């Protein structure tokens, strides 16, 4: 399979051979394997690396003093965790693997050298950052206004679309190595409640979710229940058209 980071950035603009080669080098030079649940960087630490997710699944999270955790973003293969994060003195959140995850942990200087050499990549990186901010806004809307069932439906639609955009879905199925606790921490609901919403979605024939595999049986109905609007994912034209077809009720 191709390099998911290149695949991802090419949603914004086609890269030339030299740019692709430079990105490939970065993603092979600094590979780090993370065990499930292993932390990559902790809140309060000075950010020194730009992390690129090559394989697996990771998350950003914040912890309250009493130990309760809120997951504030999921990373799928191809995602870049903040192209300029080293501008900040200290991390305002932590990043951890959820499943076995392979990342490229690129030192800040190396990353700056890359964009100095290929200024066009700067545009692609801004695009990528702004898309992640748009996803964060949708999450605020999700937690603030949607019911638990709608929240779950929206998150599953989102993750399915994001995985599809990097060619990681197989028909109506995709690997989604999240536990019910992870889902609860991302949606702001209890694990018991997560279990109940998943059962409801299953009983209505919309999805099944077992052994880390999500199957979306009726995407238009799931999207309808969630009031899912893919605009916030800012998919490139071809991908957006494909998604529109998938969401259309037949």
């Amino acid at each position, binding site marked *: 399979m191709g390099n998911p980071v290149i695949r991802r950035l090419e949603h914004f603009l086609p890269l030339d051979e030299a740019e692709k080669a430079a990105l490939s080098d970065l993603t092979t030079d600094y590979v780090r394997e993370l065990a499930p649940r292993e932390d990559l960087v902790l809140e309060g630490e000075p950010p020194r690396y730009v992390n690129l997710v090559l394989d697996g699944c990771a998350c950003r999270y914040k912890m309250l*003093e009493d130990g309760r955790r809120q997951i504030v973003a999921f990373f799928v293969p191809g995602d870049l965790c903040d192209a300029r994060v080293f501008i900040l003195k200290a991390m305002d959140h932590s990043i951890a693997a959820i499943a076995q995850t392979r990342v490229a942990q690129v030192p800040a200087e190396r990353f700056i050298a890359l964009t100095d050499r290929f200024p066009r990549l700067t545009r692609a990186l801004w695009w990528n950052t702004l898309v992640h901010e748009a996803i964060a806004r949708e999450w605020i809307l999700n937690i*603030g206004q949607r019911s638990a069932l709608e929240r779950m439906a929206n998150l599953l639609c989102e993750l399915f679309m994001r995985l599809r955009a990097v060619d990681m879905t197989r028909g109506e199925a995709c690997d989604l190595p999240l536990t019910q606790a992870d889902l609860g921490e991302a949606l702001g609901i209890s694990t018991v409640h997560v279990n109940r919403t998943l059962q409801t979605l299953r009983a209505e024939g919309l999805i099944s979710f077992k052994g880390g595999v999500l199957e979306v049986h009726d995407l238009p109905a799931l999207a309808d229940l969630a009031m899912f609007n893919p605009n916030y994912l800012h998919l490139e034209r071809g991908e957006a058209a494909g998604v529109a077809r998938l969401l259309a009720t037949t």
Partner: protein
Amino acid sequence: MPGRLVENLERHGALSADERLAIEAMAGAARLVPAGAELVGDGEASADCLLLLDGQAFRHKTLPDGRRQILGFHTPGDVLDLQRLFLGVDYGVTALTSCRVAAVPGSKLTEALIEHPRLAHALWRMSLVEASIQREWMVGMGRKSAYARVAHLLCEMFIRLRACGLTNGERCRFPATQAHLADAVGLSQVHLNRVLQQLRSARLAAFRARELLIMDWTGLAAAGDFDGQYLHLPARTVAPPPPAQGPTARTGRTTQA
């Protein structure tokens, strides 16, 4: 002239005289918009980005059935729709007060991102801070009690307005209605109203007559589990305000939402 943006950027790493001129030269003439006006329309295309020079605004997103979520409040110096440089906007921004704004052509701003490394640095920083605030809001709504959420929001607004020089002692003008606050923290207006009353009776903060009064900073910050690190402001800006000289809350009137 967009002095506020320059101020905002300067706090994040002192612009040179050249860069200051570069931004000021980019913006068109300032215009005034009344409170309640739509500054950025959800889904609307524009070639310009909008700088907020003076006033306050809020960013929001609405579900098809009308449920509205406020995603953040804007203070002077913010670029309201930086996203336009590379994406369509997927949210709206509405003026909370009358606002003075100026348009910067997106093409010029994009050029500056490549040509002016320090300005680019400042805008990256602005975007990182915005993202950090969004994450903090998620933690609030996902994990904190209604009481803590409201206390946290009041702390955040006070510190941010103070960083813009818009506070007066323990007071600041924050003309959100209770409906705005409810939509920002994901509560019903009835619930929000009850929480504001609790914060007032606990003598932590009063929010009335378009004004926020901090009665007990330490108590309010503890109630909201507020730690200003996520705002990435200089340490002196996040430090607690001077203690009030005895409680000065007015009594007898309640805010009309």
